């Protein structure tokens, strides 16, 4: 599988609500990061919109399925549009892949649009990859934004 095909596969899992399968794409030591600040260097000294280790990411997926997850039920419909995929080398055996992401979300008669620059660090796993790190830099991360209850 090419890295490009892998990113499309990941987006498809999210857009068809196969969140548990999506979670399995992540390695046990994975991090999932949506920084608060543009160009943020450190997730420990500055807050993040999301900064999850694998345990917390799993809680995020489980919450979506909870019948009283008020902000998540009914489940939002999304389209994750991935483009501008570029491979930026393979330091330490991990492939660094940059992409652009547009997400359209629809829930409770409200449609929202997100734009982000994304970086994946992918590890080879047989014919496919696993995600060791995913960073999503929302273009409006420092702006005034409604609560985000979807996976980006």
């Amino acid at each position, binding site marked *: 599988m090419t890295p490009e095909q892998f990113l499309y596969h990941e987006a498809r899992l999210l857009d068809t609500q196969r969140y548990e399968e999506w979670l399995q794409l992540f390695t046990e030591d994975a991090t999932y990061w949506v920084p608060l600040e543009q160009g943020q260097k450190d997730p420990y000294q500055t807050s993040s*919109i999301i900064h999850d280790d694998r345990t917390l990411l799993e809680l995020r997926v489980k*919450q979506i399925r909870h019948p009283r997850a008020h902000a998540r039920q009914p489940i939002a419909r999304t389209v994750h549009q991935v483009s501008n995929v570029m491979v930026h080398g393979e330091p330490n055996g991990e492939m660094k892949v940059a992409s652009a992401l547009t997400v359209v979300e629809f829930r409770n008669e409200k449609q929202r649009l997100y734009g982000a620059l994304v970086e994946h660090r992918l590890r080879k796993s047989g014919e496919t990859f696993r995600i060791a790190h995913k960073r999503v830099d929302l273009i409006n991360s420092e702006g005034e934004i409604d609560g985000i209850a979807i996976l980006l």
Partner: protein
Amino acid sequence: MAANEQLAMLVQPDRVHRSVYADPAIFELELERIFGRAWLVLGHESQLRNAGDYFTTRMGREPIVVVRKDDGQIGALINRCAHRGSLVCAEGRGNLERFVCPYHGWSYDRAGELKAVPFASGYPQGAIGELRLKAVPRVALYRGFIFASLAAEGPSLEEFLGPTKASFDDLVDRAPGGELEVAGGVFKHTYNGNWKLMLENHLDGAHPAYVHASSVAVARNAPEPGKPGEEHYYDIAVRQMRQNGAPDAVWEGTGIWTTPRGHGVMGDYHDDDRLVAGMGNPAFDQYRNQLIKSVGQKEADRILRVTLWNTIVYPNCSFMSQFRQLRIIHPLAVDRSVVYTYSFRMKNAPAQMFRDTVAFANVVNGTASWVLTDDLEVYERIQHGLASGAMEWIYIGRGHGGDIQEKDALRGKTGTSEVFIRGQMRAWLDYMSRDA
């Protein structure tokens, strides 16, 4: 007078009329009579270290720039050119020598005085001599926190805060040397709901088990937080989400007080023994030693035993001292609000203490948090429901009739009493029904 009598009918001892949350005309009056009069929290002096440092904010609908002036004092100016009305200062923060209007280049000094006007000869003699950036009439600090009031007259800041000063004291006293600084980024989350909904939620001990049911459930099934020396990154998140699922008896046993002018405080619930120190956390021990070095053993013990949890400063602020979080709410419309969430670093405490603050902020106050997002969803559902005219009243009678008058505050009969909402509504009516 007639209008004020009508307002008084909207607030009754145990109920409030829905129009208080849903009527745009009442919202306009709130901007004038509440946000135009009360002391509002604007920020903290650490945001303005040097002359010329500024940040922009709002007071109700007014665009404001808060600035450290050349004389070292902090001032607040209406961010609006005296000429044709443009904002003179771009949104954000930075350092400036002069505020220069982008439209025609009028420039003002850090105190708001007009210093230079291009094409000055074109104006009639003396016509622009008196013009300046309008200054917010009153600015005052309490323990480093910056407050301002758009009203030239009114109670002093200390009078306004009253017993609520103790919560600010708690926040500052916990920092060795009393040194706090804004750090770690600012969350800015919006919701389609009235500003009062947030202030009515933060001291509400009956809501977590229901609003936060899903995050409580997933945290209960999460791996156990680690023992001292075996901590995980996720521990703070898991613990904090589980706390919201505390048994009813814990919430009922919480202290809840409301003070004149609508402020309120929840106490007696969390304490550091349960949160950190009791678990023998080495960073906390190191922090405690630094506090002892700063103020002595006896005073350090006293400070760490204060258990004030969430505090509301009516009408625009909510904060808590244990993890040093402060939220400022800006009303945008009757059904639209934005909340800015700030974290504070104790300058003389171990770095791990601030890492914990950041982790706490992410899980509880983050824009995509497991916890906050459910609160926002419920605010929106309330606003939606209150648009219905089929039922007129909101019921705020939990604990009504059992309130206990203490020295300078009214205490709820139990921790889930709605005494604090009744207190907020009394303050609301007081601001709203005064003509001046």
